[in-house]
């Protein structure tokens, strides 16, 4: 994935683990280091794109929104006070971009990506590509959730954000995160059935 050498300094390598390195890279990117931002992009772009794919349910729209997310995140890096909050910040940005895209789509029914049944025809690009039954199943299950819950749930399960991070990305109070995740799980499990409940 990486097409550029890591901007590793002796200082950074001393820090060790991947989390610490990411922290370093965020700090560097915030200081204007383009290579560090590229490192973050390479690390997180797939996740952001998948997240936007889950939200927008349209491959092209997700790609476009992912680009916009990184552009905007780069511009707003200065507002990121704590480098450790990079991922909540990034996914929060992605979520705002997706909301804007959806609103735009709703306002302009002529827009191609806005045709509501398109998502049904291509429920999950990755899953369709690989033809994996479990992926198609997951996509269908996610589709039964409303947009907010779906976003919170995938942030938790797919992207590993903690509760505070989800609150930050969604702009919710922490109590709401817990509540919404619980409801989302109930619905997801109902839709997935045996996939979650297992043989028992």
């Amino acid at each position, binding site marked *: *994935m990486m*097409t550029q050498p890591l901007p590793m300094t002796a200082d950074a390598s001393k820090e060790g683990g991947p989390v610490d390195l990411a922290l370093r890279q965020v700090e560097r990117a915030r200081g*204007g280091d*383009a290579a560090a*931002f*590229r490192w973050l*992009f*390479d690390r997180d*772009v*797939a*996740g952001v*794109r*998948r997240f936007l794919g889950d939200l927008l349910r349209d491959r092209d*729209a997700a*790609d*476009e929104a*992912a*680009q*916009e997310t*990184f*552009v*905007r995140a*780069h*511009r707003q890096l*200065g507002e990121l006070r704590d480098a450790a909050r990079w991922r909540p910040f990034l996914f929060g940005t992605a979520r*705002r*971009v997706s909301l*804007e*895209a959806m*609103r*735009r789509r709703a*306002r*302009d029914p002529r827009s191609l990506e806005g045709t509501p049944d398109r998502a049904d025809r291509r429920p999950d690009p*990755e*899953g369709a*590509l*690989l033809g*994996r039954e*479990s*992926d198609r199943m*997951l996509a269908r299950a996610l589709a039964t959730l409303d947009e907010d819950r779906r976003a919170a749930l*995938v942030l*938790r*399960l*797919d992207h*590993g954000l*903690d*509760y505070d991070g989800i609150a930050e990305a969604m702009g919710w109070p922490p109590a709401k995160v*817990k509540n919404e*995740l*619980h409801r989302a*799980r109930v619905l*997801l*499990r109902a839709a*997935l059935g045996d*996939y*979650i*409940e*297992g043989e*028992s």
Partner: protein
Amino acid sequence: VSQSEDCAIAKDESTLDRYVAGEVEGEEQRELAAHLMTCTACVREVARLRRERALFAERATIKEETSMMWDKIAPQIAPRASRRVAVVGGLVAVAAGALLFLRLSGTAPTNAPVLATATQAPSAAVPVPSEPSGPHLSLKMRVRELPGIERLEYTTSGAPQIEVESVAGEVAIDATTSNTVKVSLQRTDDQPIDESWWVLVDDRDGIKVRVWCTALDCGHAPKIRIGLDVPIHAKIIARAVSAEVAVHGGDGGIVAKTDSGMLMIGKARNFVAKTVSGSIGLDTPANVKGEAKTTSGQVEWAGLCGAACEMKIKTVSGGVEISADGPIDVDWKTVSGRARKLTDDGERDLGKVAHIVHSVTGDPGHATVETVSGRVTIDEHEPMSRNAGEKSEPAAELDAFEKAHPELWLTSPIRGTVRKVLVAAGDHVHKGDMLVQLESSAERAEAMAVEAEIRAADAQYEQYRKMEKLGAATPMQVAEARGKLEIARARLAPLRALAERAKIVAPRDGVVREVLARAGDKVIEGSALIQLRAADAEPASAASSENGERERSVRCDVVEPTDWLPSTEAAAGIYVAAFPLGNLRRQVHRGQRVWMKTDAPIRRFEGTVVHVQPSSAQTDVVIKVASPRDLAIGDGLTCTFDPK
């Protein structure tokens, strides 16, 4: 494994969720682990949570090429360090790319500002700011085919005031459509708009759109066109620095200002258009009420006037052309010397005529046209009976007009280069003084060509003469060569006449207020060079100023004592008369001391006021010179009156 199926920890799965994710540590983790040893419900829940994660984890293993995506965003994030913050109108905007700052508050100023940036990827989606919130305003924004900004759309139900500001851009406002305000940026050469162009939309108080360019060479860059579609009743304020402003429609009134750009006003019934050196184009509907002012630009008025039309057009050195239909009653003012009228037979110098009134029968609309040194053209569609200025006293009209215009911009009559500036701000000048020496580029090029021609013709003539002596050329050939030389020489004469035009002389006495011209400057017809303030327009208290001497000075001439001199003073001596005194008259009295000097060579004299004429007379004051060495009748001097 005995805990009840409805364990609270299992039901609210968040604790186990965090446990599965490895987010639970220390004492809490140990407690949970112990609990899991005994609680079936929690064990089952943990199993579900793990399967959930596994489903997502499988999906996340799919890799896709992302370098293409990076290539698209890389150019947008590159210049981050160089361009940071701009503050306009109290708003702070930070941008890496072309920027839209949208503050959507409508009438509710509590809403948070929304910052949106135009991205540069083709058809990249730009954030649509928050839902319509104010009762009067909603916003729909779309940016496509970037880089740059193509279109912003507002929907509004009110009648907002719209303000557009531009630095080095072009502003075009089209208010012919109702219900939407659309802002669009477009380069007139269809090149993409780069990140040096910034747009700021602020609707806290009316709608303000500001466009400016951060690059150094924006002034030379191809123009940006900002399109703004506004409700027909909107009030529009457009301001620009070195930009063009075009406003179309807007029944709510238009105020358009630009420093050096052009102003276009169309289909507006109520407007004020002001520009320093730009031209103004007016295309008006009937019954328009408008005012157009420019210092050195041309004003063109087309369209309709109508019965209730009220139009004021003023220019200092620009031309005015009116081709409006309908009955127009025109007040037409222009100052002498350079005022010309374009007629069917070509340009006619109006000479000293300062004020011409055209009127028509019926119930006419009214238009006032004033120009100091420009050109006024009126295309008379309707028969106009001349209630002509010829009837009035030209000199009086001129005086009145000059008094009304104490400050006069002198502008270049030609296209060319400033050779020399002979005055500085604060200098007192007299009528006829040379202020600026210009060089016409056409004249210069032509003169060089003609001079070269003369040299060539001269050389050939000399050669033929030598050849004739040797018998190698005929007298015919010599005569022909001589003829060519003379033709070439004759062509120099009109060029010398042009050179005369290239001198800017003071049209009246005054003080130089401002000097814009600098040696080497390129100028065009109408470029403002020097601002001159009429000497008598100075306040009376000027006597106490450091330039008091100048303020108390006036041009005067040596005259013969004639019968108008009171008999008691009709003794031998040299007398000097000054006319007109203007405002100075109030300070002059009989017996006052006067210092006089000639210009070149400078010689000084002293004298006393012996007579002050009543205002109706030709001569204002008569001064007896104490020791008039070498003064002759007709000599010109500067007379400076004692302040006491």
